[in-house]
């Protein structure tokens, strides 16, 4: 049957010439566009955070100071925080504060918010990025290997076993895994510490708790992508060259899997950062997660606001970095754009 394949794209030659001669320029242009998008996202983030506090019903200052504070004290506090100024003025001074590194003072801890952030941020960053690395390093090879072993209906037993186990583990929330780990390592054995951040051993359980569920989930996605790649025509062309299986997977399949894998990594980053909140609580990890829960409960809005800002910035910047790596690796992506 005559297939309805697209006829030759006469433009490809022209585009190809243009792209090749300025590939570096294209990457530069892409990066510029992406950074501009990042800046808009930061503006949106800051605005949302700003409005968030202003939307709290009732008087946030009174809420924070409690019902015993006199009206005079409350009023004085409001004045000092500039809460009686018109909204646009508050917005501008908020930006001013941001750019000069002044985020106000925490109601509950009586320290500058920036100081608290400086102290606690490293712990969360370590946890998040260690876990991201673990997830990627384990799940990408795992997904590819399982795909290679089960493609074309081979080894249906392995297929079912993997799908069931990974499906089950992916559903288990990280706080349940964390709790189970605490049970294992606090109650049953004491091989690894379950609280605090002292010494390399203390990193093991928190990272595990964050990673296990995501490894199951990400490897499933990588497997599906790998199966798609394996069924492509260019893999058949490669097989026609009669090379070893190993060469086929490493030199021909793998380069096409880097992009989807990194993309998934980017999406996973958001969940990871969110997961740190729970895991830090369970393992008493001195990061931002512990802090924000307390801040919300004690209605310490300058602190809560600062932490949310930092979380948002981490995710936005990390996504930018991943996009940048992606564009360097994938020769076609500069032609696309959001």
């Amino acid at each position, binding site marked *: 049957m005559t297939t309805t394949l697209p006829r030759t794209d006469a433009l490809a030659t022209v585009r190809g010439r243009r792209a090749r001669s300025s590939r570096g320029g294209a990457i530069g242009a892409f990066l510029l566009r992406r950074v501009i998008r990042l800046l808009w996202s930061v503006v949106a983030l800051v605005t949302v955070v700003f409005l968030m506090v202003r939307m709290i019903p009732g008087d946030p200052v009174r809420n924070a100071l409690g019902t015993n504070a006199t009206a005079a004290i409350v009023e004085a506090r409001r004045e000092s925080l500039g809460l009686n100024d018109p909204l646009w003025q508050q917005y501008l001074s908020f930006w001013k504060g941001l750019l000069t590194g002044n985020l106000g003072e925490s109601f509950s801890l009586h320290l500058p918010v920036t100081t608290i952030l400086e102290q606690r941020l490293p712990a969360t960053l370590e946890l998040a990025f260690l876990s991201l690395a673990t997830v990627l390093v384990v799940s990408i090879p795992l997904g590819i290997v399982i795909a290679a072993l089960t493609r074309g209906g081979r080894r249906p037993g392995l297929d079912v076993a993997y799908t069931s186990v990974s499906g089950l583990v992916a559903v288990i*929330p990280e706080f349940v895994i964390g709790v189970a780990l605490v049970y294992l390592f606090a109650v049953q054995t004491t091989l690894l510490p379950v609280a605090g951040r002292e010494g390399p051993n203390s990193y093991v359980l928190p990272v595990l708790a964050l990673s296990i569920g995501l490894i199951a989930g990400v490897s499933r996605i990588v497997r599906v992508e790998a199966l798609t790649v394996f069924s492509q025509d260019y893999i058949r*062309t490669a097989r026609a060259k009669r090379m070893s299986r190993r060469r086929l997977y490493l030199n*021909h399949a793998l380069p096409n899997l880097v992009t989807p894998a990194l993309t998934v990594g980017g999406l996973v980053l958001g*969940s990871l950062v969110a997961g740190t909140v729970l895991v830090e609580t369970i393992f008493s990890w001195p990061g931002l997660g512990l802090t924000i829960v307390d801040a919300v409960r004690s209605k310490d809005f300058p602190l809560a606001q600062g932490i949310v800002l930092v979380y948002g910035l981490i995710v936005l910047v990390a996504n930018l970095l991943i996009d940048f790596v992606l564009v360097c690796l994938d020769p076609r992506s500069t032609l696309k754009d959001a």
Partner: protein
Amino acid sequence: MTTLPPPIPAAPAASSSSRHALVTALRSPLGIVASLLLVTLILLATFGPVIWGETAKVADLTQLSMAPSAAHPLGTDAGGRDVLARLLSATRISVVTAVLATAIGVTLGVLLGLLPTVAPNWVARVVNSILGVALAFPSLLLAIVVSIIVGVGVVSVTLAIGLAMAPAYARLAQTLGASAAGRDYVDAARVLGVSRFRILTRHVLPNVRDPLIVNASIGAGTALVASTGLSFLGLGVQAPDYDWGRMLNESLDGIFVNAAPTLGLSAAIVFAGVTFALVGETLARAFGLNRSPRRQRRRRGASNDEVAPLHVVDDPVLRVRDLQVRVPRGDGWADPVRGVSFDVGRGEIVGVVGESGSGKSLTCMAVAALLEEPIEVAASTVQFEGTELTAGGRVSSRISSAGVAHQLGARMAFVLQDPATSLNPALHVGTQVAEVGLLHGGLDRKSAHRRAVDRLDAVRIPDAAQRAQAYPHEFSGGMRQRAMIAMGLMGEPALLIADEPTTALDVTVQREVMSLLAEVNEVKGTALLFVSHDIALVSSFCTRVLVMYRGAIVEDLTAADLAAGRARHPYTRALVEAIPHLEAEPGTAFATIAEDAEFPTEPVGSRS
């Protein structure tokens, strides 16, 4: 919370009976388990508080934090209450919160996602930029933000999670809607003049609905986990109310004394999460969005039918006898190639013509040992330059000996059908061509590359040295096919298998590629096995033509005989009649072949 973005499913298959698919899915092991779990969950949620509510309230101050016993299977908590009873009565609030939050998220998300399709452009842009930022933000944090604004408690948690889920569903609805809107049938409706709203409800929404339902049910599981997480953090249900999350937090304090509550609660949370996930998976199978795993089929033994070739050649480059190709279909097998025997002589140009379903492409891939499991290839013999490729009556895609691999790699060349996808998009064209020299030509990297550039030049690709550094997407279709030919010319090919190499090309480009193939045949003496549906092209290019119909060769004749109208098989004659040609009388009716016409599948008598 461990949330992966909802997977974007492939285009849903329109099943002839969706009810049938649903019933099949429910009857499968997966469906049965999912249904049982779901029923259990619903029953517990509905009747839990009714049955165990009172027991849960009983606080026995003499039995604080006791270990499991007959009276208290999971022990008691710090307030002397039976943990199991509390766990079971807490099912309702956990499940209801999850379902409500999902409902909020999906409804809001779908509205936001589909709004741009009916609203003016600027609205669409604003919504999209907000969505873009919201999506980058982890949903748990969004939920925390909402908690900050609305305060803590079960209502705020439900609202928070619902709002946090909305962006993901908006993006999903958008993607699904856009892919549905991009389909030709939506264009057709627009040309008819169907209103935008009607198009949305009649053509777009039904295609959006099924994947959305699947994602929503998986999302309910995520929502349950999220609300439990928020309660765990103390932001959800407040004392004296309780749910699983709050209970889990409390149980952690007493884990050294009595670990049973922790384990029991963990099990309960996982149980609920798994239930929703399995329900989602079952629905996906029912809607035809995921393929069910294939059941093991019995392998049929190779049949002994012998098919005599219609034309035997001495010292052929390729000899095929009794080739059969079987593919799994449904619960059984199908035979797209049912006994094919032919020879290809040295330097011959043999064409294979047939329509869709004739088996011509599969035949070529089969003799080249390129078909993999689960497709099965059987033959009594397939010899390439004297080397036997069958083992035990089968042709396997695994080449056992290095020598055979080298022979095939260096002496058998290919040009395959779709130039857009035959070359690896992630590798330079030059690298892909040079690889043949590396693998089978005994060349080192530099020499292989040099030869590759030389071959690219030989197929008349301009600026070959520079183009070798380019990626396939920078080549046009005709150039990609030439690159494939160059790949084949790295060795000294005895046979070049071309499977519809010019179907996707313009007719002027086709002529150039065909001339190149003719040149390869003349200069290098390479035999060609040329598959096409275009009989005119085959007759003008090949010396001998095999006509395939329903998996068998029905005629083997010279191109001259074919062109002169000396074909003998009725199918061949009908095909030749049906081709439109430039000498036809304008304004006359086109020759047709009735759609239900059945031609004999026996071949016409053989020549010697």
